């Protein structure tokens, strides 16, 4: 698809028009697919799982278009759907596998055998440490550490106060650094 300059206002208007909705939807998918994919992938780790969650995110967005009133940005709305789909997926997987507190121990081993993971042993260990965090704390860590998102933007995205997000991030950083300090 040719690189069409993104015009959110235009796309939002087109999404409201039943005759133009499908075309506008494909423009929206093209614009946000990679951003959302990496946000999901960092949480679920597996490419196949990330693909499933990403597709479900856009399908949820399509079926919920009538509920989008345009008060928030499209990116915020989509990221919220992606976040919820990711957390629901992780919860379902946890219930299926009956994972306990030691579940993260297997992450490094899983990543070592993953054809779509290029990191070395240190990277595997970092992902294992991050996976040991509670899901919402992982979200905050990933958004702040890897995406370098501002706390104010994160607050709008997650619906959590800036103060709570800062506390969550500092707590996550302390846990991960303790993980490496204990191993080194």
């Amino acid at each position, binding site marked *: *698809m040719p690189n069409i300059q993104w015009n959110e206002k235009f796309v939002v208007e087109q999404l409201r028009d*039943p005759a133009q909705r*499908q075309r506008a939807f*494909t423009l929206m*998918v*093209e614009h946000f*697919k*990679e951003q959302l*994919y*990496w946000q999901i*992938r*960092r949480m679920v*780790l597996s*490419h196949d799982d990330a*693909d499933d969650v*990403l*597709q479900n995110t*856009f*399908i949820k967005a*399509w*079926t919920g278009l009538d509920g989008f009133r345009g008060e928030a940005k499209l990116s915020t709305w989509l990221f919220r759907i992606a976040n919820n789909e990711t957390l629901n997926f992780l919860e379902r997987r946890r219930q299926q596998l009956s994972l306990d507190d030691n579940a993260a121990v297997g992450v490094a081993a899983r*990543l070592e055998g993953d054809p*779509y*993971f*290029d*990191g*070395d042993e*240190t*990277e595997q*260990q*970092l*992902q294992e440490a991050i996976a040991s965090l509670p899901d919402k704390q992982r979200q905050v860590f990933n958004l702040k*550490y890897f995406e370098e998102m501002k706390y104010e933007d994160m607050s709008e995205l997650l619906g959590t106060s800036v103060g709570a997000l800062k506390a969550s991030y*500092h707590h996550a*950083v*302390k846990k*991960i*650094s*303790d993980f*490496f*300090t204990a191993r080194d």
Partner: protein
Amino acid sequence: MMKEEEIIRQHDSGQRPFTTPEGYFDSFTSRLMERMEHEGLLEQPAEKPAAQPVKVIRMNPLQRFMRYAAAAVVAGVCVVAGTYLYNHEMSQSQSAELADYVISDDDIDEMLDYEVVNNSQIAYYLTEAY
């Protein structure tokens, strides 16, 4: 930067370790739309048929008169039935019983007989009254 964050950076290559299959993003949108079409999510609601113009049928004067006459008969039945019930003397107990009183076919016939007045009777009453 926090001291703890520095420790993490020492174990982070700075490169994204995750990869995707070749051409994954290029084909994503088309695969998604195919799936949505297959699941029936892209079906458009059936268009409503265009509203048909309403045909106006004008009644002739006789039809209009018969319509008004029928309405007058109905109104007359209501008035007569009400008068009949009012003129019947009822005690308190009979009033209470009225709630359970079922109008029989004989009652209905009596009411209708009371109401039906033919032309000759109208003429008689009018002449006798004066």
